[in-house]
């Protein structure tokens, strides 16, 4: 375990060295992702000029909602920084044979393939997320429960784990399909549903959609559960959600590992 950590740190160090050699590019990437985020925040501010709350009686008034947005920023920036760059490279590695070089190394292939690149510029949004959270928390209608503060990092980790599993499964699909230009699109459309509180999905269409994105592809648990725990009063139903999220994260990791190994073994028996 410590060995994997030290290898990961070596990867991270190498990527940092690389980013610093292309400093201008690094700054540009930070600025563009910050620009995108600022635009979204402006949009939310605009929405709150028309309504005090998103969904009647949901409790997502301005400050809790911005705590929600901050949570989303933090989770997404972790995934974007640690896992997306490697996953995007995977198809290219299959095509050029770089995957072969990975498979002969005495390390877990999934670890190497999903974590060998770190995109430090993606942390910029996460930092803004932390700042936004620090702004929102003292302004919440009620201060977060101490238990909630303890649970929050765990649930963030669960959210990251669920997204990681999705990335891994999409990457496994690209090994099969042999191309990845749609990987990022698909990722974008899928995670798009996790951007807002789950309560907005109601009605004859919203209900089934919410169920689908909670129980089948647990994308709605990713941001919603940690954000709800920190920004809304703790309830019994909330306890269930926490347990469900921890379970979903574990299950997602196991299933994605299985899918990924299956894709690799298919690669091994199908290629020449």
């Amino acid at each position, binding site marked *: 375990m410590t060995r994997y950590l030290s290898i990961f740190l*070596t990867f991270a*160090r190498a990527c940092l060295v690389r980013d610093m050699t292309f400093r201008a590019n690094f700054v540009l990437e930070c600025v563009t992702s910050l620009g995108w985020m600022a635009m979204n925040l402006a949009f939310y501010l605009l929405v709150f000029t028309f309504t005090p709350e998103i969904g009647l009686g949901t409790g997502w008034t301005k400050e809790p909602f911005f705590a929600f947005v901050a949570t989303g920023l933090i989770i997404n920036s972790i995934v974007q920084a640690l896992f997306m760059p490697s996953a995007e490279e995977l198809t290219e590695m299959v095509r050029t044979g770089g995957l072969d070089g990975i498979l002969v190394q005495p*390390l877990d292939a999934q670890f190497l393939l999903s974590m060998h690149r770190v995109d430090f510029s993606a942390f910029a949004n996460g930092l803004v997320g932390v700042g936004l959270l620090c702004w929102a928390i003292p302004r919440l209608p009620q201060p977060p429960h101490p238990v909630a503060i303890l649970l929050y990092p765990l649930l963030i980790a669960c959210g990251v784990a669920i997204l990681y599993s999705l990335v891994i499964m999409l990457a496994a699909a690209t090994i099969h399909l042999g191309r990845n230009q749609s990987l990022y699109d698909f990722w974008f459309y899928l995670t798009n549903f996790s951007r807002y509180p789950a309560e907005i999905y109601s009605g004859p269409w919203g209900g089934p959609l919410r169920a689908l994105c909670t129980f089948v592809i647990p994308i709605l648990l990713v941001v919603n559960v940690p954000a709800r725990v920190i920004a809304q009063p703790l309830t019994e139903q909330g306890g269930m959600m926490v347990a469900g999220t921890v379970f979903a994260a574990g299950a997602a990791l196991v299933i994605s590992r299985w899918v990924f190994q299956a894709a690799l073994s298919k690669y091994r*028996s199908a*290629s*020449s």
Partner: protein
Amino acid sequence: MHNSSHPRTDAPREAGEPVIDVRGLAKEYRVFDKPEGLMASVTGLFNRKSRVVEALRGVDLRVEKGEFVAMLGPNGAGKTTFLKLLSGIITPTRGSATVLGSVPWERTDDFRRRFALVMGQRNQLWWDLPAAESFRLHKEIYRIDTPRFERTRDELVDLLDVRKLLLRPVRDLSLGERMKLELVAALLHEPEVLFLDEPTIGLDVVAQHSLHRFLAHVQAERQMTVILTTHYMKDVAALCKRLVVVTQGSILYDGSLEQIVDRFTSHKIVTLDLDAPPDRAAIDRLGFPCEIRGPQVILRIDRTRIADVLPGILRGQGVRDVSVEDVPLEEIVAEMFRSGSTAGTDGATGAPR
């Protein structure tokens, strides 16, 4: 020293288990008539048209410790497939193989720490970083302790004279320089077995030569077992005593470099330098296939008759110089590739079907 363990059919094996032991290894893979488009790919999940390609058709090979084996064959002969199987990158359809006592495709970490694979056309080093960073990573992945790492690195770097390249980004290096650093990286963990897949492809003569010197030296010193695939006869001649010729997934020849000449050619090439361009009819009268280039005559003479015929020829008028040579290796091998002949394999070392 690597010729001491040349495995002839009848050679006793009391020296212990061979380092590489391959029996009946076959690899077939399906080629899908790849449907275009995402939808087609999805429907294709259930209903795909495919055909089976036999990349390797039951290969047997035993390699002893410290041997340097060259694998020669045209493109698509199955050389790379063979190395990928022995590295555990892919799994075989049939047959068995052990490398260093392990089954490669079980991919135990212990096994993977004991060999290295270098592919001439692929880049293992981090493109945008100096090679020194990749080496550090290698140290972590292969758990090399620091003193050993530094000692090995310094030794290899000095042998190849690449110390000044270590701190330059790999993307700024020439192909030859990159290949040298790839080799250093691959040898850092002191593998007992080394697979080289076309390591000299695209290199200029100077770089080729220095790689040859380096490989020969390191291999001899460490008693490493090496399998090298290549297109270049020069690689073979410089490095290997044992030659394996592969075409269409089968081994055509497995034996020493010298013997391939004995086995596959019945004649020698005799070149005569004359005072003046000769009379065609006089040469034809000798009764051998010939070629006349000005005052030079090139004859192909059956090797069993050379001793009888040559004195008579030399007694003829105006012969200034003579040379007797074997048919060049390139020519023999090219002929083997072309004919795809299955003759001439040693009974036990190759079993083509």
